[in-house]
Structures are given as structure tokens and as C-alpha cells.
């Protein structure tokens, strides 16, 4: 028999707990979507003469929309438990296929936004904390304020105007040029380019992801900088830091090994939460940059009342949130052995 450590059992428990959660989320999404006025047939058929009530009724019948709500919900849950996410009412394709196609683009964008946010936010936060009230600190604080305040739809467009139209450095939108595409492996273009060693594709994809990743990541960078600064300030005045210094540990080492590592815990919490919202809150950025990700699919499907797509996407979002939280908790234990799951 395999013996699991206490931590492994905890992790397994948390993963199993996502199943009822996903079903709960599916039910909520189902009920909310049905509570909205309008239905997919009505919206798809829109205008047009000669669309008879009978024709619309026939389509509703085909989509199962004329059944009572509880029967629809029951049928839906049965299908989901069997692993079938259903068929899009508008896009004439299986929902699983739509999500599988869109999700890699969204993950790619979220990861790069997060990398950008960390690469900018942590150094700025640390530098500010090391010299409080200095010029660096004030500049950092002002930039953070700007970063959290600027809305993405404005920032994105201004970015396009400056970097694409005026300077001509970056493409306005899209994910990669048609003639530069790497072979399809994971669906994440940059990863695929790295795996296949396709340098031109990598360069092209990186150029395309710059503006959207910065637009999406700037707000997060600002929050990361602020949180890192304040937790760093707390830690740096702690006794054990003074002690380390008194021991004669070089200042760089004090900052890196003793202060930063302990100061990172609030940042990790924050990053966990923010990564979830980067995955789920990128509709505007995806729309501006024509980024073919899940956010656009969801918004569009909500407007079109494409119930199966919305329900499945909401489940995907919920699951990612839970899994990211789990990952965050695991990282805590690594950063601070005193913490256990």
C-alpha cells in the first residue's frame, strides 16, 4: 500500500473538493443564465421577415429549451458528470472544443502579464522599502497609483497609438503573423515556438504579446509593488534582520535571504488571487487586441445567451481559481516551513 504523507493527503482532499464545487458553480451559472431575459434562439434569429414563431419553436425544441428548467438542469448535470460539456447553440461546435481552442491563448497572456507584473512590481517594491521616502520610493508610489488607476481599455488603445502607429515597433493586435506560426503542439504559441526551436516564430509571438501583456499586467505590477513595499518595510525592521546585520551578514544577503523571502508571503497570496483575475478578467484586453482567448468567448456567449458555453467557461474559471489557490498554499509551505497545509 502506498503511504501518503499528511501533506499529500491534504492536497488530494483539496483536489477532490473541487468536484462538488464545480457542480455548484455549474448550477449557479445555469440558473443565472436562465434568469436573464431573452434566449439564444431569439437573439440568433434577431430580425428578418418570415421567421415564424413555429420555426423558432422548432429550434428551441431542438436545443431542449422548451423543457422545464429543472429538467434542463438535471439533463445538463448528468451530461457534465459524464464529461460532456454540451454543444454550443450558436457556434455549431462542441463546447469542449471551443474551450480547448481558446484557453491556451488566455493562459499564455495571463502568464506573461504576471511575469511582467512580478518583474516590475517586486524590484520597485523592494527598492522603495529599502529607502523609504526617497525619490525612488516616491516615484514608485506615483507609478503604482497610476498603474492601478489607468483602465485597460484606455491604456491598451494608447499603447497601440504610441507603439504601433507612431513608433511602428509592435503590431496592433493579433497573436502571431500568419506566415510565422510554429507547429501546433500545446496551442500556446510561444511555448510551441520554444519547443520546436522556431526562433522567428518566437520573436514574432513575443512582439505580439508585449502590448496586451503590459496592458493587462500593469495594474497587477502596481499592486505587487505596493504590497511588497509594505511587507518588506515590516520585515526589515524586525529583530532578526537587525541581528543578521549585527552578525555581519552583507547587506545584499540580508535583503535577499532574510528579508525578501519572508516578505514574499503576502505577495504570493496576492499573486495567487491576481493570477485568477488575470485569467478571468481579461475580456477587455482580449477585445482590444483581438486576442483569441476565453474572455472574448465568454462575453460574446453571455450576450448571445449561448448557455452551454457560458456554463462550461464559468466552471473552468472556478476550477482555475481553486487550483491556483491550492498552488499558492503549497508555495507558502516552501517559503515558510512553519506553515503547513
Amino acid at each position, binding site marked *: 500500500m502506498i503511504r501518503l504523507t499528511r501533506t499529500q493527503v491534504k492536497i488530494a482532499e483539496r483536489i477532490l473538493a473541487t468536484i462538488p464545487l464545480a457542480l455548484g458553480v455549474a448550477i449557479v451559472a445555469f440558473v443565472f443564465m436562465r434568469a436573464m431575459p431573452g434566449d439564444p434562439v431569439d437573439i440568433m434569429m434577431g*430580425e428578418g421577415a418570415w421567421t415564424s414563431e413555429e*420555426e423558432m419553436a422548432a429550434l428551441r425544441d431542438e436545443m431542449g429549451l422548451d423543457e422545464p428548467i429543472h429538467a434542463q438542469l438535471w439533463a445538463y448535470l448528468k451530461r457534465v458528470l459524464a464529461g460532456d460539456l454540451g454543444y454550443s447553440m450558436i457556434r455549431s461546435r462542441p463546447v469542449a472544443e471551443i474551450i480547448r481552442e481558446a484557453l491556451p491563448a488566455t493562459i499564455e497572456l495571463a502568464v506573461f502579464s504576471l511575469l511582467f507584473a512580478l518583474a516590475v512590481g517586486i524590484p520597485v517594491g523592494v527598492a522603495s522599502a529599502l529607502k523609504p521616502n526617497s525619490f525612488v520610493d516616491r516615484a514608485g508610489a506615483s507609478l503604482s497609483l497610476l498603474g492601478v488607476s489607468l483602465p485597460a481599455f484606455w491604456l491598451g488603445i494608447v499603447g497601440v*497609438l504610441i507603439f*504601433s502607429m507612431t513608433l511602428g515597433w509592435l503590431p496592433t493586435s493579433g497573436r502571431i503573423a500568419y506566415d510565422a506560426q510554429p507547429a501546433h503542439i500545446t496551442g500556446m504559441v510561444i511555448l510551441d515556438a520554444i519547443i520546436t526551436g522556431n526562433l522567428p516564430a518566437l520573436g514574432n509571438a513575443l512582439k505580439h504579446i508585449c502590448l496586451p501583456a503590459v496592458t493587462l499586467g500593469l495594474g497587477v505590477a502596481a499592486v505587487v509593488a505596493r504590497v511588497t513595499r509594505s511587507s518588506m518595510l515590516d520585515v526589515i525592521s524586525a529583530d532578526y534582520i537587525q541581528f543578521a546585520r549585527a552578525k555581519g551578514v552583507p547587506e545584499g544577503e540580508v535583503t535577499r535571504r532574510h528579508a525578501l523571502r519572508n516578505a514574499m508571503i503576502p505577495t504570493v497570496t496576492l499573486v495567487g488571487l491576481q493570477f485568477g483575475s488575470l485569467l478571468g478578467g481579461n475580456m477587455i484586453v482580449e*477585445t482590444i487586441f*483581438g486576442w*483569441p482567448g476565453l474572455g472574448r468567448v465568454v462575453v*460574446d456567449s453571455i450576450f448571445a445567451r449561448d448557455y452551454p458555453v457560458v456554463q462550461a467557461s464559468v466552471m473552468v474559471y472556478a476550477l482555475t481559481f481553486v487550483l491556483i489557490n491550492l498552488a499558492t498554499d503549497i508555495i507558502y509551505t516552501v517559503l515558510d516551513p512553519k506553515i503547513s497545509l
Partner: protein
Amino acid sequence: MKIRTTLIIIVIAILAVPGFVPAALGTSKGQLSVIIDTESIRADEAQAIAHNLRAIGVSADVRIWEWSALKERIQAGERQIYLTDWGSAYFDPFDIVVPKFLTGDRGNYTGYSNSRFDAALNQALLAVDADVRKDAYFDAQQILFDDAPAIFGYSLTEVEAARSDVLNWQPSMDSRVNLHDVGLARGDTIVVGLYADKVVTLDPAAYRDRPTETVIRNMFDALVTRTWDGRVVPEIAEGWRAVSDTEYLFKIRKGIKFHNGDSLDVDDVVYTFDRVLREAGMGGRTSPRQGLLGPVEKVEKVDAYTVRFVLSAPFPVLPQALVHFQIVPRKHLERVGDEAFAREPVGCGPFRYVEGRLDDRIVMERFDGYYGGSPMLPPVATAQVKRAIFRMMPDPTVRVAALKTGEVHVIQSVPAHLVSALRRDRNIQVKSVEGTRVYFAEMNCTRPPFDDPKVRRAMNYAVDWDTILRTIYAGNATRLSTAFLPSGFGFNPDLAPYKYDPARARALLTEAGYLTR
């Protein structure tokens, strides 16, 4: 666009004080008080109309809605004035005036009903003789104008733009992007920045929206097509004739090949229509396009190159309708199935499908076996560019930026406020065509105060459309006298729109018994 719309709706919903103002004040009619409903996209316009109404002593407020929610309340007859619009695809009042204003029809949100008007429309619908139809439409227009169930508005001019190295480019009134006829001064790949978030499918039987049609019509041809200004001309068909009011014969051109090498014949045509007309005809699903064929009952083979359309009632706009039914290859489709066909479509159009993602881009390449297309739309040859790419670019500003940087060659739906900037750019050509969508403010004719035509006419005199169109839409709009479009059949150009005349509006309101301060 939609996201921003949602945000605006939320913000306004929070800010606005929701209040229901009773429609009328019983017999002792006091001051007229109305709420104007709109989607957020036309909020400015609604505010301007409210301002105009306040100027004649009407207490007017604006409320912003999501469309489906508003529509439900409108159909329940609970609202008063609502800004709506309706598009026409057939260049005939058949698919705009009929659904909007015929008694009890699907799009009739005003509850308007006038038997004389209905009779005139029905006459136009059933007659095949063009003069009879025209006269009937003229009658209907006059009645509609006098009854004024809506504050009649405008149609927006459709502005499109292309790089100046795109040759022979001409926007179409049916918003088709015809890439067969265009050439490029430099390069061999033409890129179109499509205004949509996605195309829903590549199967010509499975959609109802225009962006999807725009893409599909470059890979598929139909029996007939249109010139850019809306005239129906033969495409796959050599010609057609009406045998009677309810029977049409179409002759099919010989020697047309599909992208997979199969020859196109009458069986493909019959199959295409059968797939749309039959319940569950699309691999178990019913085509959402069924209704667009109106009273077409069946489509049958006469001989190898002749096909017969049998109708259950006269349908004079049949040729206009057939522009929108692209012919699919029977043998291929039966072999691969509907789902695989939608994934990798095979048509007989100027471009063949290469690869793509519906919410990203669709790539197609010139089909070298193309028969040349409609002889009425030169050049009659294979496409001039080697490759065509449609990119989904939902954000209008980014679309314009991409055109300016040369990333895309053609864009549609240029926002009104960016038109002048594009016109100044030497590398860009801007062209516009008349729109085929009517915008108006409908009134609830079933309840006071708008059950009184005097009040409705007063509203029409009260609104200063010229100022609204100039300031909000930068003049890219055509003022309309009714819901009949100038591009449509049977339009009466002599019927002038309501003039902006606040004094007359006030007088009419007073006559109807309202205080106008």
C-alpha cells in the same frame, strides 16, 4: 464594444435614479411625461431627444437597458418611447417595413395597427408586377408617415476604408467584402480587418449574421449575386425566369468546379436548398436560415442544368433572397458529414479555405479552377490576389490603427469620429455607401399618450435630427421620412421627412390636451 457597453450600463444603472413615471394622468391631462429607453450605444442620442422634448414642455428622462431586457418589457407593452433599429437585407421593404409595422408582425414593437396600411403592404407583397408593387408601397409610405408610430430617424452611412494600394475596391451596400474583384499594387496577400469578434461558422447553412456571411461569400458562390449598389445579377445561374407567381426556373452555368474538383450540377443546388428547408436537414439540426426562404416550398431538378423553385405564395423578392444562399457540394458533404464540412468548407467560390480559427483569423487562397464569377461583375477570371486573410478585430480604434500601419488592407464600419482623420491620410482611400439599417424611436401606440396620432406627430416635429446627426454621427447619416430606405424598392423620394418645428409640436400637444408650459 460589448464589454464597454456592459460597463456603461452598469455605471449608469448605479448612477441613474430608477423611477417609473406614470404614462398619462387620466382625463385631466397635465404635462406629458415620458421615459425614453435605449441601449447604451445610443445614449447620447436619447439624451438629445429628451432635451428636444423638454423644450416643448414634455418632461422626458432617459433610461439605459441591455437589449434583451428592454425587448421583453417592450413586447409586454410596458414602455413608452424606445430607440430601436432594424436592418434590411433584401433591398425591399419586405424585410423591414413589413416585420416592423404590419399588424402583429414579429418586429412590431409599437403595437401599431392600421388596416389600410396592412392592405397596401399585402398588395405589395403578393403582386409580381413591379408597378403595382411600387404604387402599393407609395401608399403604405404615406399612411405610415401620417400615422407616425415612430419618431422616424435615419440610416447610417456605412464608411469603409482601404489602403491606397488596393485596386478596384468598392464597398457594397450589402456589406459584402468582395475580394475576388480587388487587386494589390504590391504583394499578393490581402488582409481584411473584420469588425466582428468571430464568425460563427463556415457552413453556409448555419448562421444568421453578416460578418459570417462576408467571409463565406468569398469561398462560396450563390445562384445569383449583387452589384455593389444592390442589383441582383446571375452568378452560378446563367439566368432565371418566373413561370408564374409561384414558380421560378433557374438555368445553371456549365463547367463550374468545386474546390475539391467535383463539378457543380443541379443536384448540388437541390441539395443546398433541401438542407436548409428540411427539418433537421443539417446533420440532425435545423438550419437557422430556413425562414429567410419565405414561402419557398420545394426546389427540384428539371434537367441536368435547370432547377425549379416552387412557392406556396407569391414571393417577388426571391432573387434578392437567393443571393444569401451559397451552394454546397452534395457528394463531398454527404461523405464527410456536416460537422467536418463546417471545419473544412469546400465551395465553388474564388477562394478556397486553407486554415483558420473562427475567433482569430480565416486564411484562404486563390482557387485556380474558378469559373470567373458573375459576367456582370468584371473581371471575370480567377481572383487577382493569391491569398486572402480575414482577421477578427472587434475594437474599432485598433482596426483603424491596423489600417494606418498597413497590417490590414481593408476595414469596414469606420467609426464616425475617425472618418475625417482617415480621409486626410494619403495612403488610405475612404468610401462610403448608404446603409441598409433604419434607426428610429418607436412609440407605444397601444397606450396613452401615444395611442393618439397627434401626440406621435408632435414628437416627430419636436426632434431636431439634423443637429443630432451632425453632432453625434458627424453627418454620416441620411435622414428618413419613414422606415422605407432609399436603397430599397418602392421608396418615395418626394415624401419629405418631418421638419424640426417645435412650435407646431407644441400646438399639436395642446390640441391633444396636454399642458406645454
